[in-house]
């Protein structure tokens, strides 16, 4: 994101809305974006309504008000002068928007967002089948953001377990070598709001996966949200629950349920 300093009146509304908290007031009293830390999610641009006020008019009002020790408070969800500007992004910076802005459809997956459909369409795709588990490691979430150099550390540790990275996943597509989890060098210093490593394996390998994640989590400077999914048994039981408990971990009370209304239903041979 860029801010047009000719238009900015330094109201500060974009500072709070910024998902990474990386917009600040410069010495000239106008807002500026820390480009290294901005993930190009465009939230500020989308959320703050452009009031199309004339910058000189607002600046004059503010000067007059400040003379009387009064302040000018813009409404919380506006950019009074439309100073926020969408930049043209070039590779590799362009991946920031692809991973961070949910309105962007990833060219590789055809799905908006940072991952694939995972179990959301499992009733028709059969992606996670009987005896299998889907593993979802979302790096940078909640609200912290992640550099690909950290994502690579986790991917490389998990790759040693010989699990299957989901081919259609956007992170997998940025790997130099999915056998090792090594990412392309040019993306390592790119930061995204979050990115999802997706894989699947057999249920009995859950404890090994969790042990590995336990170790590698200490090496990264971001948070990780971990999800685990499987196809239910005919009586509705969730097969991975037993394996997670055996490994000594707790899971959430809430979660996601595919209720199986997709057609044609995927039939396992």
């Amino acid at each position: 994101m860029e801010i047009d300093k000719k238009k900015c009146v330094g109201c500060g509304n974009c500072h709070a809305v910024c998902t990474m908290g990386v917009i600040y007031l410069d010495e000239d009293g106008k807002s500026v974006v820390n480009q290294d830390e901005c993930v190009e999610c465009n939230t500020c641009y989308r959320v703050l309504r452009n009031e199309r006020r004339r910058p000189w008019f607002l600046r004059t009002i503010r000067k007059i008000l400040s003379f009387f020790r009064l302040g000018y408070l813009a409404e919380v969800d506006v950019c009074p002068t439309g100073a926020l500007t969408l930049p043209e992004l070039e590779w590799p910076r362009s991946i920031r928007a692809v991973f961070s802005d949910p309105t962007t459809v990833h060219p590789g997956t055809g799905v908006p967002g940072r991952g694939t459909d995972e179990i959301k369409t499992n009733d028709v795709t059969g992606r996670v089948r009987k005896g299998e588990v889907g593993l979802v490691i979302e790096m940078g979430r909640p609200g912290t953001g992640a550099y690909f150099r950290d994502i690579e550390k986790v991917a490389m540790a998990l790759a040693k377990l010989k699990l299957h990275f989901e081919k259609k996943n956007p992170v997998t597509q940025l790997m130099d070598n999915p056998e090792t989890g090594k990412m392309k060098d040019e993306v390592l210093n790119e930061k995204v709001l979050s990115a999802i490593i997706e894989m699947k394996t057999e249920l009995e390998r859950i404890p090994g996966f969790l042990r590995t994640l336990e170790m590698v989590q200490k090496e990264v400077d971001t948070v990780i949200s971990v999800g685990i999914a499987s196809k239910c048994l005919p009586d509705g039981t969730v097969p991975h629950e037993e394996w997670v408990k055996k490994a000594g971990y707790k899971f959430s009370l809430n979660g996601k349920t595919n209720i199986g209304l997709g057609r044609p239903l995927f039939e396992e041979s």
Partner: protein
Amino acid sequence: MTNTLHRQGTLESLKNDYIIFAHTARGITCEGSAPKLQKFMRICLKYHPVNIGDDKQGNIYKDDIDIQKLISNQGDGAGALAVFTDLDTLQKVVEELIQADLGISINISGLLDEVQTCCQRAGIQRHSAEHSLGFWGARDRLPEREILEFNTMCGHGMVSFNLIRKMIDYVKLRRLTPKKAARIMAKCCECGAFNPLRAETLLEKVRKGEREIQD
């Protein structure tokens, strides 16, 4: 995409938070899905969701959004969602969706046992389920629990920690009502998964300095 998986909160608070969404699979159910997605949204709308939207067009809290236009503009695509605050209404929606037999995948995020009960009452068995195993890594970078309860209602992370703090401050200072502050947060969440009614309740509690007991 796991945008509704990691919602934080007490059991009591999560009992008022169910997201139902329609999703299509490329090459299987995506092509020709527009009328089905529109039907899905119309069925949801009938039961007065507290939020409804899709990734492409946004949600009903965005500026200048007309819900009927949002539905009719729904093309073949990934999906749509709606948020409900009680299980009985959710069950009615599920029953009507079963009747409608749209043939697209339907998912529900919420308390897993309650959703399972809802499915069984509606005469179906759940197909697949996903749990959150919580937050790992540099957890010291996370803010306090109350902030996370708001932030995780938008799994895409569009409601920033700083905005939540600002909204809490404004509500405490009576510059904004809890309702208005909740709507501003909901506006940020592009797909409409944010539950503004739950946010309003949480803001009321925060304003009064009440703390919830974590289950």
